[in-house]
């Protein structure tokens, strides 16, 4: 019962936050210094084009009516048309979204798997060389600019070694029948192994670069959380019973050590969503991060608004889910 009350409370907090965020995104077009129409169309636009844009964006309406129209349209997934390409904003975003989801998911998987593994190993062999390396790595990982790291990876693995492709999601001439839009999943579903390996080779470097900061964070948190748990009585009891260290760690200790890690996973989502913009730019990855940067360059405000609102929505929802998982895992926690 308490869990459902908590769920309801959390859901109710989300609504004003989302509304506030959408006001900020809406106002974006109105805080542009000078005339937004000139900014978007350039100085030499014809009067007819200017008037058409003013009407399309509803800029001749009073502000509150503009907001209401924009919000009700946005709630139905209609963010208007892109100024750059004149396609519907949502269509273009949805065409690009799977690329970003695939990249971010791959980065999360890398960060979680390796982060927990290295964190646990460091805690298990405390003060050993492995531990020192894990600490060193987690220090370096949060300070390295991932866009530079990505470039250095390209130089090493593509230019010098020639192992991995430089950019994009798939080699020219290969095609994958789109089901989910995630190339790895779709190529497996259709049994297209050649495309699967090719997509995987394209994905490795960007995903690894994107995962770095989160990975460093996970190593640090897993290590300290595991060290706490390993000093508990029940761990000693399990060892005294004669249980092997691997069994103790992965069967008894890890489950309890995971709770703080769940929170950090939530925190790192913000970093991953921001990092995707950088990684996609470095690796010419055709996701929404790169679309955002292109749109900023073209001052394509309807597109910018659509992308930002969608990402904020995703961010709020993921945090909500993480909070709920957290509350579920540890029933003592209710805010």
């Amino acid at each position, binding site marked *: 019962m308490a869990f459902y009350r908590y769920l309801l409370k959390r859901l109710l907090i989300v609504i004003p936050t989302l509304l*506030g965020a959408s006001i900020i995104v809406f106002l*974006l077009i109105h805080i542009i210094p000078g005339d937004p129409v000139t900014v978007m169309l350039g100085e030499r636009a014809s009067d007819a084009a200017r008037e058409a844009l003013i009407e399309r964006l509803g800029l001749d309406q009073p502000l509150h009516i503009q907001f209401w129209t924009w919000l009700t349209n946005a709630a139905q997934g209609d963010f208007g048309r892109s100024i750059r390409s004149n396609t519907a904003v949502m269509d273009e975003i949805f065409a690009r979204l799977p690329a970003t989801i695939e990249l971010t998911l791959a980065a999360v998987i890398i960060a979680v798997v390796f982060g927990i593994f290295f964190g646990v190993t460091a805690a298990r062999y405390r003060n050993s060389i492995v531990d020192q390396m894990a600490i060193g790595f987690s220090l370096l990982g949060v*300070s390295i*600019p991932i866009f530079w790291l990505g470039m250095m990876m390209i*130089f090493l693995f593509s*230019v010098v070694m020639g192992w991995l492709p430089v950019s994009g999601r798939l080699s020219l001439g290969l095609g994958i029948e789109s089901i989910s839009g995630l190339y790895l999943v779709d190529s497996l579903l259709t049994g297209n192994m050649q495309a699967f390996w090719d997509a995987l080779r394209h994905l490795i470097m960007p995903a690894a670069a994107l995962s770095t900061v989160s990975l460093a964070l996970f190593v640090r948190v897993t290590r300290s959380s595991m060290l706490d748990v390993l000093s508990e009585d029940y761990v000693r009891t399990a060892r005294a019973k004669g249980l092997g260290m691997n069994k103790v760690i992965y069967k008894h200790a890890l489950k309890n050590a995971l709770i703080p890690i769940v929170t950090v996973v939530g925190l790192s989502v913000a970093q991953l*969503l921001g990092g995707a913009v950088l990684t996609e730019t470095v690796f010419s990855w055709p996701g929404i991060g790169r679309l955002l940067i292109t749109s*900023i360059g073209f001052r394509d405000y309807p597109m910018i608004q659509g992308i930002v609102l969608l990402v904020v929505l995703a961010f709020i929802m993921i945090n909500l889910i993480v909070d709920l998982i957290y509350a579920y895992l540890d029933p003592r926690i209710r805010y």
Partner: protein
Amino acid sequence: MNSELKMFVRQFKKNRLAVAAFIIALLLVFIALFGTYLTPYDPLDTNLEARLVPGFWADNMENPLGTDGLGRDILSRLLHGAGISLKVGYTVILITALVGISTGILSGYMGGVIDLIIMRLVDIILAFPPLLLALVIVAALGTGIERAMLAIAIIYIPGLARIVRGSVLTVKELPYVEASKAMGGSHFWIMLRHVLPNVITPTVVYLTLLLGDAILYTAALGFLGVGIDPSMPEWGAMLSGGKDYLLLGKWWVTVFPGFMIFLAVLSFNLLGDGLREAMDAKLRI
């Protein structure tokens, strides 16, 4: 030197990594202050005759770190860039501190509707992934290093306001605040004289960890070519478009500026960690 400070210094010195970071940070500050006098060339001077020339490893002592795609001397640009990065870092911290502390105190001390509004606003801003928020603000305000600084400061203000508000809430119930009120002290006087000194420690802890982060965000904006003029010798902007040179094997165009960002961020992060630990140790006693 008073005993508290002595204790702090002793604690800080124990952390060797932080001391090393402190020395590197000092060096960076020195470069930032005097870099313009040290540079062999004007960082904006292009020389199309000498594009992408390798540096000392190819016995080129005129441009020890080589030249970029427009023939500009990379070393000169790096030295200038230190000033830009640090200036942005310190300005961001200053804006964050001023706005964050004052809104935090106002929110915590006044309570009621003011508190509600400020805290809702904080929630809303924190609902944006930081880099995305900075991009959006810069996209609206247009290019310029001042605007980039403002955009980055806005990322950090809500966090600080929340921390300050938290400590104000504990302070304001203490007897001496009560006493000051009874003696007829004005709200402004109480906030300034009794509340402010108590929020300094958590603020300093927050701000020391922020410098490296702010430098990283500045570089990210520069790299993305959003908000910072691409011809500026900003370290991140120097990396922008550098991938094409990497593919040609001209690695020096990207390796050095990126390494400077890394070094600066790492040293300020380690320094921040060290300061925080030393301060915590002081607080415990």
